[in-house]
């Protein structure tokens, strides 16, 4: 089974976010970039599936050369080879187009992604890629099994779960419960040195969104404690001060 795992290169979760004076881009000085944690889960599940039933795992990223350390980490974790589409990942449609065009030329049995990336959190790339390729997609998977050429996926639904059986090829977005991410070991890091990392030029495509500006959320205000014996006061505050009821 050939599995492709889509990897986003995102700021570490502990990053202190600051923007350039025009508020249109992130200041990356001193920012540590990591594999999107949900993509790491997808990668681990892909490795588990191929370790069980054979096959190979390729990782793909749409990004400039600065994202290569992230792909090397994916290789150190266990992917066999990596592909970098040499372009700035401007927005979800652009990224999805690049990935779909690559898959059209190099088909895979299963394409795994994180349910969303933790930088822009749109969670739309997997569905867009599926639409562009005309294959099924499951946006937020809880578990992924592959048996007899078919995928069995548990999916989150309101108040419960849904079990889906689906023919391959298929694209799925992975959530936390799909796998426990692996930490690369020294042997993996050493072998990643010589694994292939192919750079592919992007296809021309439109972009439909542009950044108007970024703003940080307002700082959290202080907590106001209301005596448990005075629930009416809480209601009054929610009504008059917060205006939520």
């Amino acid at each position, binding site marked *: 089974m050939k599995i492709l795992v889509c990897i986003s290169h995102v700021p570490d979760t*502990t990053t202190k976010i600051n923007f350039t004076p025009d508020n249109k881009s992130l200041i990356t*000085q*001193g920012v*540590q970039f990591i594999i999107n944690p949900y993509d790491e889960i997808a990668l681990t599940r892909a490795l588990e599936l191929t370790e069980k039933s054979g096959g190979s795992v390729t990782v793909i990223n749409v990004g400039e050369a600065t994202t*290569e*350390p992230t792909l*090397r*980490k994916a290789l*150190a974790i266990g992917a066999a080879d990596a592909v970098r589409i040499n372009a700035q990942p401007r927005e979800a449609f652009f990224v999805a187009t690049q990935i779909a065009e690559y898959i059209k030329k190099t088909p895979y049995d299963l394409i795994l992604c994180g349910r969303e990336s933790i930088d822009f959190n749109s969670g739309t790339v997997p569905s867009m890629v599926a639409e562009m390729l005309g294959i099924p997609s499951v946006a937020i998977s809880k578990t992924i099994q592959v048996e007899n050429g078919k995928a069995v996926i548990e999916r989150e639904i309101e108040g419960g779960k849904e079990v889906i059986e689906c023919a391959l090829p298929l694209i799925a977005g992975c959530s936390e419960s799909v796998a426990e991410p692996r*930490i*690369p*070991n*020294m*042997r993996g*890091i*050493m072998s990643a*040195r010589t694994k292939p990392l192919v750079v592919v030029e992007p296809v021309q495509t439109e972009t439909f969104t542009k950044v108007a500006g970024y703003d940080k959320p307002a700082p959290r205000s202080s907590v106001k404690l209301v005596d448990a014996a005075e629930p009416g006061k809480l209601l009054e505050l929610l009504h008059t001060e917060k205006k939520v009821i």
Partner: protein
Amino acid sequence: MTDRFTAPDYYWIDELLTEEQKLVRNSVREWVKKEISPIIEQAAQKAEFPKHLIKGLAHIGAFGPYLPQQYGGGGLDQVSYGLIMQELERGDSGIRSTASVQSSLVMYPIYTYGSEGQRKKYLPKLATGEWMGCFGLTEPDFGSNPSGMLSNFKDKGDHVILNGSKMWISNAPFADVAVVWAKDEKGEINGLILERGMKGFTTPETHGKWSLRASATGELVFDNVKVPKENIFPNVKGLKGPLGCLNSARYGISWGAVGAAMDCYDSALRYSKERIQFGKPIGAFQLTQKKLAEMITEITKAQLLCWRLGVLKNENRATPAQISLAKRNNVNMALEIAREARQIHGGMGITGEYPIMRHMMNLESVITYEGTHDIHLLITGMDVTGISAFE
């Protein structure tokens, strides 16, 4: 308590590291957060070595990371080795000590001074943690002056008979293999590989330590131990054998101390912003800021010292005296920072809720073992004046 550690990098020293070095460092950092931080306080409180970590330490590559892959090593460079030690000691000095001993004091001498047969027999199993090792140099009456050692062996044809004892030996209580330094009949120091189970070889545990409590320490006792001659290192004689090992281990300690200091600083910085006194965070007071500013200054200097020493080691140019300077400076720096960080934490600093006291107590051993603070000063003194002040 969740490990909220964020590594300080005031001078963007990460830019001096290769992507591979950063990947090694980050992988070990992640492993420490996942495996060491949740259990270490309890292990230290109970004075128990968390033996279950051995498999994980081997898996991430903490045993012999700079030795060639054909013997089970990682094939990494010296800066990567240092970064591994930094991250392990950020978790706990006791765990770093276990990895230091295995790598620099057991695997390194077997690789450097051992025969091909010795390398093939021991190194792969030591790399996977299937066998754990210890290093016997210090004796009850010979610490800073190892050349006076009393442990000795007599030639009996195809084997030797070893007598004597060693003290303050990390990993001794559970080690399968011991690299032991003893004198032959001519009074020359030789290295021997002992295996658990050899008749007359025992390893009683040292109890009641207030330091390195999550690491096992013991003695090595040799009572007419019959050691096959093929277990003697063929390629080294004299004090340069054990001192070569100590150079490698001391280099790792100079990085490890930075890890302990970083953890104390990070905890103190966070605490100083969260702890409110007189209506504002204690980090707003000048005296707290002085402590924190001096901490980050010293950590930054120590980080640069380590990085430069690592580059020199990679080029095979680092001198023993340069390593002494780094070990002495960095361990003392870490101990001072632990003490200042303890003050910032106030009463909370003495509890196991924070890592400060554990690091501080650990560092009291680290400042003494592998060459005391004073002995390293004399090594630097001798190096700059050309005059020995040891005797």
